[in-house]
């Protein structure tokens, strides 16, 4: 079932080349999609247009049958509760504890008063508890977020997205600030979330080998347009060069490519 559909989406910032031009694709429920491309190719812009954190200049975006591009404030907030977002720099409230940051994911569901006062019911707290356990950070529950490592912070970010009970999670370069060990842990968790809970994942990455190892489908961007859209097995060195515009990068991926194809 198609969950997300983009038709001719474009984004222009004044005075510069367009960040996105004529982008169209659709995503099915439960798909694990990686978006790759060089810096400035439009990956981040794309993700943020989907939940309208950035306003697209043209085109249509529909999520779960609703036209996101046409929604007003309250409708947009409702849609956002169903879309989770994980950020490169975690974007946690550092002064607050892990559990408080995780439960922030529920704020979109609350009335203004309940949200302001931060009133969470026991069902929500129990769910947060369980999510923390699955992500292996239950013991950090009461620690302040400025006292935990980068990998742990990112797991808190993922937990915050999960507690929303979203249909889809957008991850904007989630492992860019992490070392290889922590990156693998995060990607494994994301893969499990997708397969166990059927949550659609769209992840922007600049590590092509990670994309090859984990995704069902890869979309390659170059200067705001899609240059590749298909399963990892079909991603050849030639296509990678097209996407990144540089040969030496491609050579380092040949091993991963061989694995994916074989």
């Amino acid at each position, binding site marked *: 079932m198609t969950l997300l559909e983009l038709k001719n989406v474009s984004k222009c910032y004044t005075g510069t080349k367009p960040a996105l031009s004529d982008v169209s694709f659709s995503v099915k429920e439960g798909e694990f999609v990686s978006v790759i491309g060089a810096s400035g190719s439009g990956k981040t812009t794309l993700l943020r247009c989907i939940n309208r954190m950035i306003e697209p200049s043209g085109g249509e975006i529909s999520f779960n049958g609703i036209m996101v591009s046409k929604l007003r404030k309250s409708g947009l907030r409702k849609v956002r509760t169903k879309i989770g977002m994980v950020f490169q720099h975690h974007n946690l409230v550092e002064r607050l*504890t892990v*559990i*408080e940051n995780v439960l922030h994911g529920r704020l979109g569901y609350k009335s203004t008063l309940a949200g302001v*006062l931060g009133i969470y019911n026991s069902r929500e707290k*129990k769910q*947060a*508890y369980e999510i923390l356990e699955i992500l292996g950070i239950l013991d950090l529950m*009461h620690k302040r977020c400025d006292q935990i490592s980068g990998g742990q912070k990112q797991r808190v970010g993922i937990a915050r997205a999960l507690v929303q009970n979203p249909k889809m999670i957008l991850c904007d370069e989630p492992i860019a600030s992490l070392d290889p060990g922590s990156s693998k842990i995060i990607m494994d968790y994301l893969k499990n979330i997708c397969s166990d809970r059927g949550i659609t994942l769209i992840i922007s990455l600049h590590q092509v080998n990670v994309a090859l190892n984990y995704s069902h489908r890869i979309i390659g961007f170059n200067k705001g347009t899609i240059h590749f859209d298909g399963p990892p097995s079909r991603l050849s060195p030639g296509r990678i060069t097209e996407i990144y515009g540089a040969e030496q990068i491609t050579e380092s991926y040949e091993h991963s490519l061989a694995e994916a194809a074989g």
Partner: protein
Amino acid sequence: MPADIFANRRKNIFLFLAFIAALTTGSMVLTQFDPVNGLISILKAFFWGLSNFYPDVQSLSHITDILVKLRDTILMSIASSVAAAVLAMALALMGSRSTRIHVFFTYFSRGIGSFFRNVPLVAWAMVLMLSFSQSSLTGFLALFFGSLGFLTRAFMETLDEVGESTVEALKATGAAYYHIIFQAVLPSSLPQMLSWLLFMIETNIRDATLVGFLTGTGIGFLFDVYYKSFNYHVASLIVIVTVITVIAMESISNMVRREIL
């Protein structure tokens, strides 16, 4: 238990707010402040302002008087700030960690600075008025003493920031004390100190109104005259002129700051 932290945090916030509320109510009782009366006055003031507190054609005839007094006030503010700056510079050089001759002077300069800064401006104004009576000199001296305290502290902080290591390095080359001050310490601290001086002038223009009010000089005094005779139209003109002056002074200072910092 996951539940506790939220209850805890809510309790802490509640306690904090309760403390503030208690402090406020206590203060209201202590100072006999009536909040209801207060709110009503604000509304009354608003309506009065709209109907009375604006310059009318007649008040414009007083503009020459106002401008003369304004000029006096501005001159007084600048002169007192600059004079205080000169003395403060000496005190700061004596007392700053980087340039002092002896530790004792740090306490001395800091003490003088703190003393002059914390004696309220009104006290200076009142006391000086007893012997100098109502002349611009009184205002000048009051502002002078007030500024001296603030600038001494500010300049000392600036000099401290230059750092002992710079001074040490130059000492090792055999440079004399005065050479070090004039070739290294002063040049690096000059922009920041000028910025403080400008800030002092801005502050003094505002304070000059208060001092003038108490000592019968400058624009503050003029306001008092018209205010007490219920001539609110002219009084409002004075306020407007003061605001323009302050904002102009701030803009000039900011322009200078942008160039030098």
